[in-house]
């Protein structure tokens, strides 16, 4: 177990800057997920932590030691690859034990630890097989076993689940979570799947074009996204963005949204809760209102009376997408298509008007120019 500190780390290939100064600090035992689309630099960062890529500028510290020039094998890390990278010429047991062999662990000790790891991952019956004789899930487990057996300071995962089918992916996700809970080892996990990130991480770092957009706990990332990019990347279906203007109506601060219904232009006023009086400076200016689909639903007067943050309005329904638990209801707000999550028993047929309410207490406001959270 170890702490990990990444300080102003940069990476460039010639004139192309892949990482533009990353700062991340990780406590002992944390589970960090590096989340971002492909090409954002997350794998490069992981490789740099592993020592598989050189650092152009900045420092990486493991347990307060700068490791920039330390060879991977001396960093005491283990890594699970997307392709599993199992040695095709070695049996499962040899694969798992190879790292120990390289570290000159005695044969006896090695066998004991390999056995222990294999049992933990329920692959002990496969010890003599070659990787080519294994299924995808089994290979994944072997790859995990190879990392596990070393009992490293830090585990690194490079999209380890992306080659599995949907069901296995969920299963393995849980296993990784359990593993972390059991071992308590510091882990760094790269993925482009926000659900994996949300479920696994103790903290998520969202990367975009070589820069950290937000580095926070999953909940904070979800509820208080630092900018529109993060807001749009996390959550499914994604957050709705509605152009709006901050106005003061009847002494109440709120946002006004333009909309066109049956050829008539009108506007909706949604008041902001009292704790958002800080946006007073923005009166008369345009903002982007960010609403998560589950905070926008059919109107329930009972709830409105309980929660001051809930604001009601009517709107014509355009499309319905039932998902079972909820029905995604598409409406138009501020010239944008907006999704609401509605209880299936409260829906209206498309084309008809329905009453909605939105929890403005959970809404986000963004500066349309900088896209940053207000």
């Amino acid at each position, binding site marked *: 177990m170890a702490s990990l500190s990444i300080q102003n780390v940069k990476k460039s290939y010639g004139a192309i800057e892949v990482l533009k100064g990353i700062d991340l600090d990780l406590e002992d035992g944390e589970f960090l997920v590096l989340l971002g689309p492909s090409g954002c630099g997350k794998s490069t960062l992981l*490789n740099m932590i592993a020592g598989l890529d050189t650092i152009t500028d900045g420092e990486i510290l493991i347990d307060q030691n700068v490791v920039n020039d330390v060879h991977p*094998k001396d960093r005491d890390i283990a890594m699970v*690859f997307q392709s599993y*990278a199992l040695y095709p*010429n070695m049996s499962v047991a040899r694969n798992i034990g*190879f*790292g120990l062999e390289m570290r000159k662990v005695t044969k006896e000790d090695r066998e004991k630890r390999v056995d222990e790891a294999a049992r933990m991952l329920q692959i002990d019956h496969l010890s003599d097989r070659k990787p080519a004789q294994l299924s995808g899930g089994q290979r994944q487990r072997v790859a995990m076993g190879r990392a596990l057996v*070393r009992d490293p300071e830090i585990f690194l995962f490079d999209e380890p689940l992306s080659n599995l089918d949907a069901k296995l992916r969920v299963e393995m996700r849980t296993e990784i979570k359990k593993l972390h809970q059991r071992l308590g080892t510091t882990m760094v996990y790269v993925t482009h799947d926000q659900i994996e990130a949300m479920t696994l991480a103790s903290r998520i770092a969202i990367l975009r074009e070589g820069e950290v957009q937000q580095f926070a706990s999953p909940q904070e990332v979800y509820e208080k996204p630092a900018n529109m990019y993060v807001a749009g990347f996390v959550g499914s279906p994604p957050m709705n963005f509605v152009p709006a203007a901050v106005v003061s109506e009847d002494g109440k601060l709120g946002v006004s949204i333009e909309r066109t219904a049956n050829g008539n232009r009108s506007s909706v006023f949604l008041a902001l809760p009292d704790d958002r009086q800080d946006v007073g400076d923005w009166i008369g200016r345009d903002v982007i209102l960010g609403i998560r689909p589950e905070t926008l639903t059919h109107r329930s007067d009972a709830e409105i009376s309980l929660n001051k943050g809930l604001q009601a309005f009517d709107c014509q329904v355009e499309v319905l997408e039932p998902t079972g638990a909820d029905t995604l209801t598409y409406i138009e707000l501020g010239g944008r298509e907006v999704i609401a999550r509605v209880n299936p028993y409260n829906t209206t047929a498309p084309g008809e008007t329905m009453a909605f309410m939105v929890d403005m207490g959970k809404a986000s406001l963004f500066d349309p120019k900088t896209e940053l959270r207000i």
Partner: protein
Amino acid sequence: MADLSALPGGKSPWQSAARFGLYALLLIFAAYYILPLIVVLSTSLKDLDEIRNGTLLSLPAEINFDAWGYAWNEACIGVSCTGLKPYFWNSVAMTIPAVLISTILGALTGYSLTKFKFKGANLIFAMILFGCFIPFQVVLLPMAQSLGYLRIANTVPGLVLVHIVYGLPFTVLFFRNYYVNIPDDLIKAATIDGAGFFMIFWRIMLPLSPPIIVVTIIWQFTQIWNDFLFGASFTTGGGQPVTVALNNLVNTTTGVKRYNVDMAAALITAAPTLVVYVLAGRYFVRGLTAGSVKG
């Protein structure tokens, strides 16, 4: 593989006719390829009278291995009548180290150029690859000078060096193209597991390489064993490889020209490469499939 006969509708009246045509084509070409070998082989088994009186393509009336023994033990090359035997062993002594060293260097270089990419690795590869295309006549004179400078002119080690150098572009090409298809993650995983450069090569890469090693060894063995130009230019007398001795033998006549001996000598000279092709030919094709020629 395009095997459609198993699919429904694959059988048509044309099928058997096409099949017949196919075999006819294959056999005609087999004749074209095998003809020179038959001529050489049957001539080597005839005695001189039969050669003089019969036609080129007639088969020997009775099989007679005298010419083979004569070519191996007694035939005259210049003024020494030792047969091909000593020269054959010269070739062995030259070919084996040259093949091994050029293969090992090629494997290591191919491995470095693909799995430990450094700045300019591609350029270096291109520059090495260009060596495949150099006409060997170009290098004869400077090579002679260099061998003299290294004090290995007119020796087997000198020839070994020559063959290593001009075999390297091919071995590097083969291994590089093979290794490029082995996933980089394997190397990364092994690095994190604590294996160093040579350990990864020895424990991970080499065990994956047999197909390409077979291709490389067959290729190099054939090229080096069959070399004539370097052997003829850089060696004289007793140090010559068997191809050069064969040429001298064929062109050395004492009295009557013994075609059967010439042909037996040619077959003795060709025997090692022929055996290698016949025995390992299938691995050769398999190895090529494994990626040495892709791209």
